[in-house]
């Protein structure tokens, strides 16, 4: 699950106590704006280039909320026979199309075949650090 917010460790101050310490607010936490429902948020990783035109590239981390119902145009994760697929949700009369950039990756679901909507992708994490900087502790940026 999404971890509880980590607070900066309080240091004991000897002598004069800085006045700003009494007005201390918790530091900004990126999960405030990226993870809306922590109990129902999951992370996955994009394993293909099926949605490059949506700026979702291979190896990006996907943030997925299972509490959301998809609407046309949503990026969704569907599950079928133990495999997960990230596509654009495009319901049409009598069928459901899971759109991808290329026709070969597009999935057309005619009837109630065993395809289930697993969750809605709310955002993706796109690391932009150059490879030569991805060393030491910076190797952890979006690394899985």
């Amino acid at each position, binding site marked *: 699950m999404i971890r509880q917010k980590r607070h900066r460790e309080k240091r004991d101050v000897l002598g004069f106590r800085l006045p700003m310490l009494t007005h201390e607010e918790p530091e900004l936490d990126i999960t405030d704006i990226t993870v809306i429902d922590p109990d129902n948020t999951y992370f996955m990783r994009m394993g293909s280039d099926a949605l490059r035109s949506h700026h979702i590239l291979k190896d990006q981390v996907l943030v997925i909320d299972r509490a959301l119902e998809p609407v046309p145009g949503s990026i969704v994760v569907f599950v079928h026979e133990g495999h997960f*697929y990230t596509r654009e949700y495009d319901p049409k009369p009598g069928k459901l199309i899971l759109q991808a950039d290329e026709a070969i990756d597009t999935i057309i679901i005619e009837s109630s075949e065993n395809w289930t909507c697993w969750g809605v992708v709310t955002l993706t994490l796109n690391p932009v650090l150059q490879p030569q900087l991805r060393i030491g502790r910076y190797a952890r940026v979006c690394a899985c």
Partner: protein
Amino acid sequence: MVVLSNNDGCVIARSNEAKAIGIRMADAEFMVRRLLKEHDAVMFSSNYPLYADMSARLMNNLARYTYTLMVYSIDEAFLALDNIQHLNLNDHTAMISRNVMQHTGLPITIGVGPTMALAKLANKAAKKRKRPFLVLDTDQKISDTVSDFPIEDVWGIGLQYYHKLTEFGIKTARDFRDLQADFVRQHMTVQGWRLHQELWGKPCNVIKDVADRSKGIESSQSFNTYQTDIEAIEEAVAMHAATVALKLRQQNSMAMTLTIYLRTNKHNPKHDQHYPSITVKVPFAANSTHQLTRVAAQAIRAIWQPGFHYLKTGVRATGIVPEGEVQYNLFSNYEHSREQALAELMDELNGRYGRGTVRLAADSFERKWAMKQDFLSKQFTTNWKDIVVTK
């Protein structure tokens, strides 16, 4: 599909398909290996970090529908629904069932009744009828359901009572309910009498809110200097585990899982960074210093790595359940009263002469931590290395 116990010893959970081919609880792994292979079935080792995480997600989802949630075990909870009298109970239950299943992906069954015993009975009846929920909101529905409900499946009827009641010719929950209250009181303990009352819709057990589940109980501290050596770190971990155990005993609860973590100093750019953490199941829910220390000390050895300068370590207890409501493992040979007596004595001595007066010799542990887990599924929700890759 089957799930194996610690060290892949024997079967502790089975899917319906596995039950159908005749695999029983507690069958040894080597006995069922061939049968499973013939039917293309799969075996998994117990994946406690995943179960703990999914359990917490489930309980937090359930908590949205009630003011009072009592987490009864890793996969069972009681919800007080007295806040929804203005709603249709059936529709409301259907909504909870649908939402929680969609949000967690866990197939849950809900039983609703005027008492805890009847709710539990409704749950079991719903499972038998392969329905997602069953609401016993009228006397008629209650008497219909108890009439063919086997007595041995009633909550709180153990093997001993089952034999005793069979002697009296009691076969169903209805037979038991039709007994005179005085007769029940005479032949059974007060627990049996309470059960009798509850089957008539008179509440004897109360749904208690369990102390803030999200937080857990934690003990942690930074070292005074960097530590590299496992002996010293283990000593600190043992101390934290003892503190957690004490806090658990003070609030009469027990922990089912422990998280042990270790940290280097992230503000020191000269040091390599390492922030390992591990969540382990306590063999039986426990609050004794002895047990928690042993688990924590084994766990720390699994995550510690040589060469790092560690600054902080901590122990956090999660999966906290009330002391009286612990479910013991099938093969439990846990000597509860002995452990309890030892723990109480230690608390008393430490209380009188200062914390840490009496401690366990934390360095005498067996070092074979590496649990056998050959068929481990991934830790999809607790380990970045294991998150699902989509197509």
